[in-house]
Each structure stands twice: as structure tokens, then as C-alpha cells.
């Protein structure tokens, strides 16, 4: 169970980005997170994956806090794959940073063996995003957070990536948080949807 309890975050001397946010994701569940720009979607995903530490509240995985070192069971996939790979590494090295993914997974995601010797700038955004996805799909990952994972990709690549990730999540019992501002995509993919606009409205109503 990935649990966010009373999660609050703000940068020093600035307004709250998130306040008393609660949510949970069960293994194998696909949860959608909707919200317009500036509602803290990316901040929330960074908090859940341990890239930022919360100002108050905490994130727990299977009743334990996120590990400070070692492999994090919650992995985040960024919107821009170009920034998430070292431009000086070959694809082979990027894929194997944790462990080399199974050949069957590479094939399923359409990662050709010819790409392995190339550098990131020689692949397109969609191709790189598939590499970034393959990198974190391994047995040590229990939860995957997809922050606008396919927002900048064409429809074909988008469909391909989501099919493969959903298949993998089903087989491996992976919990998935799909963050997007595209309601149609989320409706199509998810068992359950959290709407940040509604969350914020209910908070305000509670506070009044």
C-alpha cells in the first residue's frame, strides 16, 4: 500500500502548494490524478517518489517510510525523457543503470537492439520515453508514478506505451498513479480518479 498521510509541502517563505493531502494506492490498482496546471501535480509526484521531502505529513510504502538510500520502490517517470537520461551515456548503459530489463520487455516496448549502442540525442522523444519506462520496470519497483508520461508523444506511441505498462502492472501487481490533465486518457485507463480541483474545494469548505 502506497499511502500519503496529511501531506503538505511548500518552498521556504512561499504559499502552500499542497496541504493535508491524503491518498492511497493498493498494489495492482490504477489511480488517475487530474488537475489543471499549478495545482501541485508534479510536486505531489516528486513527494511520493522521494525526490522532495514533505514539509509536514509523510509517505509510507507498506507501512514503512520511503528508504533514504538504496532502490526506491516508488519510481517516477518524467514528462521529458531528454532530461531524464545522461546525454553522455549510451542507451545500453542507461537501461542497465539498475539492471538490464528482460529482452521480452524491450521487445514489447519496441526497443530495437540497434538502439542500444546509440546516444540519447540520436533517438526521438517517444523512443527515449520507452527507454525511460523500460529502465524502471523491474521486480524491485512496486509503484510507478507517471507524471504526464505521454503528454508530448503522438497517439500511436502513447497507446503502445500505455498498453505495455498496463499489461506489466497487471502481471506484476504494480500500483500505478497516472497524472495528467487529459480527462479522457485518465477515464480510459484508471479504476479510480482523484480530482485535485475537488480535493481543494472540499478542503476550503472544511476550513470555512
Amino acid at each position: 500500500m502506497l499511502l500519503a498521510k496529511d501531506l503538505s509541502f511548500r518552498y521556504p517563505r512561499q504559499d502552500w502548494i499542497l496541504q493535508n493531502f491524503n491518498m492511497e494506492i493498493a498494489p495492482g490498482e490504477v489511480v488517475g490524478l487530474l488537475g489543471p496546471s499549478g495545482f501541485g501535480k508534479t510536486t505531489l509526484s516528486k513527494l511520493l517518489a522521494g525526490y522532495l521531502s514533505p514539509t509536514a505529513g509523510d509517505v509510507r510504502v507498506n507501512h514503512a517510510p520511503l528508504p533514504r538510500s538504496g532502490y526506491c520502490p516508488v519510481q517516477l517517470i518524467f514528462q521529458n525523457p531528454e532530461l531524464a537520461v545522461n546525454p553522455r551515456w549510451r542507451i545500453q548503459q542507461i537501461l542497465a543503470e539498475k539492471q538490464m530489463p528482460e529482452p521480452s520487455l524491450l521487445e514489447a516496448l519496441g526497443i530495437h537492439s540497434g538502439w542500444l549502442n546509440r546516444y540519447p540525442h540520436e533517438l526521438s522523444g517517444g523512443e527515449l520515453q520507452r527507454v525511460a519506462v523500460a529502465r524502471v520496470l523491474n521486480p524491485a519497483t512496486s509503484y510507478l508514478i507517471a507524471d504526464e508520461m505521454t503528454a508530448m508523444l503522438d497517439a500511436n506511441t502513447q497507446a503502445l506505451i500505455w498498453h505495455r505498462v498496463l499489461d506489466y502492472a497487471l502481471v506484476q501487481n504494480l500500483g500505478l498513479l497516472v497524472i495528467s490533465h487529459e480527462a479522457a486518457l485518465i477515464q480510459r485507463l484508471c479504476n479510480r480518479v482523484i480530482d485535485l480541483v475537488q480535493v481543494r474545494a472540499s478542503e476550503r469548505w472544511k476550513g470555512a
Partner: protein
Amino acid sequence: MAAPVLSRRKSIRFNRRQITLGSMALCLVFLLLIGLSSWLIGEAGLDPVLTQRNQPPNWAHPFGTDWLGRDMLTRSLHGMSLSLRIGLLAASFSAIIGTGLGLISGTLGGKVDAVITWIIDVFFSLPHLVLLIMIAFAVGGGTKGVVIAVALTHWTSLARVIRAETLQVNSSNYVQLSHRLGRSPVWIARHHMLPHVVPQLLVGLVLLFPHAILHEAALSFIGIGLSPHTPAIGIILAESMRNLSTGYWWVGVLPGLLLLLAVKAFDILGENLRMLIDPKTSQE
């Protein structure tokens, strides 16, 4: 009408990679030749021959002779060879210190970063030459003194650049991701940071090199560097100052030109190496 005629002319065309590698090889050979020249031509030309004083450049003495009748070509090559070795040694030590401290500072951050930044600022606040003289004097002068003094005073600017570069890479998504993939800070410094700062290191080394030579000359000039009998390029240039006004231009200009060529060769070498290492430009 002239165009087709011109295009029919057969000329050997090289691609950019061949030009890059070719110019690098040329520079390397030039620098190696200078470096080994003192060993190749021997010390014959270093003795004074009073019958052939102050000769302008001619076939027997391409660089002319000085007021003691010493062959300037032999002296210049001996001097460049020595300067090259001292400069390279001092600049390399300096670059290693700068890279090490810059990497540590940028990777660990916090208190370690504050201490290293403070040390850099202290070094920057002291007058360069005074520090150089004090260190060279403290370790007893000579070649050892020059190398230690230059190595200890020239690392600061490079450390600053590398620290900034490391901080920038440290905040990038792929490094943060590497932490979440369970990689240790040391592993990240070795595999993500170091390859990124190597080009800066090379450029830094190239920029440090002429500095090192000039400061070696400065220390020799005031008498705590190399002994005046050694044919160092700095000493030759300092001596030539007296001769310029009397019209013996070759005593200063030609060794100076040799120094310029050597530094430029280093520059081309560094620049091309940087282009080859960077994957964005390496395949153009």
C-alpha cells in the same frame, strides 16, 4: 561557365573528423618534438662562441645568436622543452587539485561545500604573485619550488568552474533518478559527474598551461625559480628585453614566436579533444 571546369578538378577532400584528428596529430607531433628536442640536438649550441656574437638569423643559426654567441635556436628549444615539462607538470597537478575539490564540493554540498568555497575565496583574495613567491621560497626554490608553487596557486578558478558544473549536473533529473535507483553518491560522482567535467578539465588544463609557463618565467626572473644558467624560455625573454632597443630583435621575437606556437598547439589540441569527447559534436 567557369564553375563546371572548377568542379571537375580533382582535389582530395577530407571530412571533418579526419581534419580534426589530423590537426590533433600535427599538434601532438609538434609538442613532442619540442619536448624531446633538448635530448635530440644535445647541448653543443649552448656554449658561448665569442667570434660569432649578435648574428642575425642565417642558415647556420636560424634564430641568430645572442651577445655571447650562443645559438638561439638551441637555447629556445632547450628552454621550450624545459618550460613545456614544468608547465605541463604544474598545470596537471593544479588541474587535479581543482577537479577533485570542485567535484567533492559540488557532490557533497552543505558544510563541505562551504569550507571548500571559503578556501577558494581565501586563495582568490591573496595577491597571486605574492603567494607564488612565498610558496616557492618556502619549499626552497628551483624546479621543485616552481612546480609546487604554480600547482598550489592555480587550481582555484578551475575548482570554481567544476563546482558550478557539478552543481548543475547534480540538480538534473537523471542524477536525482540515479539516487532513487539506489546508486551511491560516490558511484554517481564517478559515472555521472566525472565524464561531464572532463571537457572542462581539458580546457582548464590548456588555459593553465601558458599561465604556468609565464609564472615559471616570473619566478626565474626574480631569482627564486630556475637558475639563470638554465636556458628557460622565461629567462631568455627576460634577457631579450635589454636587446630589443639595440635592434637585436631576433633574440626576443623568435623564441617568443616559438612559445606562441606551442601554446596555440596546446589550444588546438584541447579544443579538438573537447569536440571528440562530447557526443553531441563527436559524430558531425
